[in-house]
């Protein structure tokens, strides 16, 4: 009953809206800080916190401080629903900001959709949120790109810019990996090259020798690495220790777009390409770097949290002083047209389209540092 469906019903609208009081906005996040995704989620949470602290110190959003309540679901999608319910039924959150993992985000969205709660930034490279667009999931807004789009762009970049003819793919054996396998294959074929071999791996796999030898036997010009930092680094280490290096080296997808990965690889990783979509070149990037100058190393995940917190804060800002879930939805649907994310690509949401950014650029490891070596390429341009 108190869903805030009608913003003009009383003199003090905030009293009617869950999670919104005169001086605070409570927002919820489901980030796995205790389970297997801890490595990703803990820095993201730290980035979120950093940005919201900054905003709050500057007086908050439209006079209200942001209070972020985070619950961990252990990365286990059967616990996600409980976590989300806690946020909205116990902690009385206003909106959902970030759920980590594609499957987990799906579970969360089925709850938030039914309750008409805005859910911004499901952290997952799955295609569902893009495919479904705003019509099927009118309350979910995606900020990050998906693996399918990325596969297309990588295929385009490898053929048109690097002139590779044959490509090998190492992918994490899950839905996302398979999705990239499909789109990369399509894209290569369209551009006159081919995916000569692809090898799946398990997240817990430790020995990559067989994978290396299988790749080696297929003589690809370059190997695309899809997955997470640990296993992909192990693959490169294994290949190096067996004296194998593909002629054009490696290209890794965006979860590896972090200097920490470059450092992990050590000398063996020199010249490796990485696909990425966040750049610290813009003012917000510089601002972030200054704020985190005490950190031992740059963390792309923390930066991810920071810039997404910014997007979300902007949305809250645009939703106005009389904040309701509908006003936030309105702002998200209508006020984000060619919105400058501040980390490179621009973002456009319409009532029908809630997909995230789909521009990628390529970086290369030079002296253990990621250096941008291409401009942003729009997925829509290479794969209409």
């Amino acid at each position: 009953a108190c869903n805030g469906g009608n913003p003009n019903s009383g003199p003090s609208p905030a009293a009617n809206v869950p999670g919104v009081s005169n001086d605070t906005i409570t927002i919820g996040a489901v980030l796995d800080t205790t389970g297997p995704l801890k490595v990703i989620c803990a820095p993201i949470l730290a980035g979120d916190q950093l940005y919201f602290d900054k905003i709050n110190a500057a007086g908050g959003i439209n006079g209200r401080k942001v209070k972020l309540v985070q619950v961990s679901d252990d990365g286990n999608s059967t616990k996600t629903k409980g976590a989300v319910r806690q946020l909205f039924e116990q902690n009385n959150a206003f909106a959902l900001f970030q759920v980590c993992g594609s499957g987990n985000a799906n579970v969360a969205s089925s709850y938030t959709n039914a309750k008409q709660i805005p859910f911004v930034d499901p952290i997952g490279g799955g295609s569902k949120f893009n495919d479904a667009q705003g019509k099927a999931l009118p309350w979910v807004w995606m900020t990050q790109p998906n693996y399918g789009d990325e596969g297309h762009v990588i295929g385009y970049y490898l053929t048109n810019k690097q002139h590779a003819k044959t490509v090998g793919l190492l992918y994490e054996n899950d839905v996302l990996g398979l999705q990239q396998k499909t789109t990369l294959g399509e894209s290569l074929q369209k551009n006159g090259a081919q995916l000569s071999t692809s090898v799946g791996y398990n997240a817990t796999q430790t020995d990559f020798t067989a994978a290396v030898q299988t790749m080696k036997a297929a003589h690809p010009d370059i190997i695309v690495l899809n997955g997470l930092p640990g296993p992909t680094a192990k693959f490169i280490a294994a290949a190096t220790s067996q004296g194998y290096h593909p002629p054009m080296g490696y290209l890794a997808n965006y979860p590896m777009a972090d200097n920490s990965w470059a450092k992990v690889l050590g000398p063996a990783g020199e010249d490796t390409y990485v696909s990425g979509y966040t750049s610290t070149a813009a003012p917000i990037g510089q601002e972030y770097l200054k704020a985190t100058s005490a950190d031992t190393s740059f963390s792309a995940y923390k930066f991810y949290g920071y810039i997404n917190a910014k997007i979300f804060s902007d949305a809250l800002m645009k939703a106005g002083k009389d904040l309701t879930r509908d006003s936030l939805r309105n702002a998200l649907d209508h006020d984000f047209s060619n919105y400058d994310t501040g980390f490179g690509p621009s973002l456009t949401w319409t009532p029908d389209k809630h997909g995230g950014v789909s521009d990628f650029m390529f970086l290369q490891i030079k002296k253990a540092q990621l250096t941008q070596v291409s401009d942003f390429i729009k997925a829509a341009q290479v794969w209409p």
Partner: protein
Amino acid sequence: MTQKPTMDQVSGPDVAAQPEVESRRKPGLILQLKNQRNWLGSICGILALIVLPQVYDQFFGSSSAFQLHRISLIGIFILAALAQNILTGYAAQPSLGNAAFFGVSAYILTWLSSDLGQPYWIGILVAVLVSALLGVLVGSPALRISGAHLAVATLGLVTTVGTLLNYWDTTAGRQNYDLSNLPDFLNDDHTLYYFIFAIVVCLLFLSYHLLHSRVGRAWIAIRDNETAAEAFGINLTKYKLQAFVISAAMTGLAGALYATWATTASSSMSSADQTIAFLAMIVVGGLGSLTGSVLGAIFVGFLPVLLGQLPSPMLIGTFQLQISTLITGIYGLLLLLVLIFFPSGLSSLGARAGNWLQRNCSGEEQHG
């Protein structure tokens, strides 16, 4: 495996140390007293379960539905702990394979219900039957393998099943597996709560009787001494297999209910973590003790949820603690402390209290 006396087994050592006194007493008196205590306890427990939702409504107001939903989870874990306890605490099979049934059953229910559109009840029935069948499949080789070998082999089974379920998800292009079209009353947190706890109470009641029957005695005999059990005509194959099947079916039921509770199934249900959690429940609660299954399920199943409530970051003076990243460690520490102070399980707390009671009762009697 040595076994400290549990609530179900204690007798007053002081009394019995003087056989003359004891023998004058009516045989069965202690048992009657104990039974009365058990009865009283059970009835109080059931009453508490019945009124809990009302209390919650008063206390938590609008969030009471969610809080109840959370409590229902304990019920599911009690079932799983009970199943593990029958297999490990009574029939002494150190099997770590139960999470496999937990996961498979959830998938079968979800598959039948969401993909094939079968009624929920058919789904549950088939899920439990398939689990029981898998129990036979797992139990038969387990008859040849024992001890740590069995533990590791079944742990391998759980991760393999988890991998295969994940493979199924992957090939079916699923990012998660929703359990839709539940019967209406299961979508309501109050009725779901009553539904789950009705099952729990029933199964606890039936298990109590089973464990005190010929079958239960056969299991305990196998646990205490396989050779003697065999020499007294207990068919090891049959009774171990029965324990596996019952345990599997019960875990399967728990798995299906879990999927119902979470409205989704995930391959992480069949993981090493999950299966070890089941074992941890009965170790923390007390091996070979029904009360232990309940206490263990609460401790292991619910404590992490409660810890998740701690505000993060927490300020202690000027020191900012990121509790969320420490939760696992805090939980581990608590677990460790319980194991150190109650090596034979939390149920020994009850046994200690019971002993004390009995001592006082019998003291009175001697004077009277």
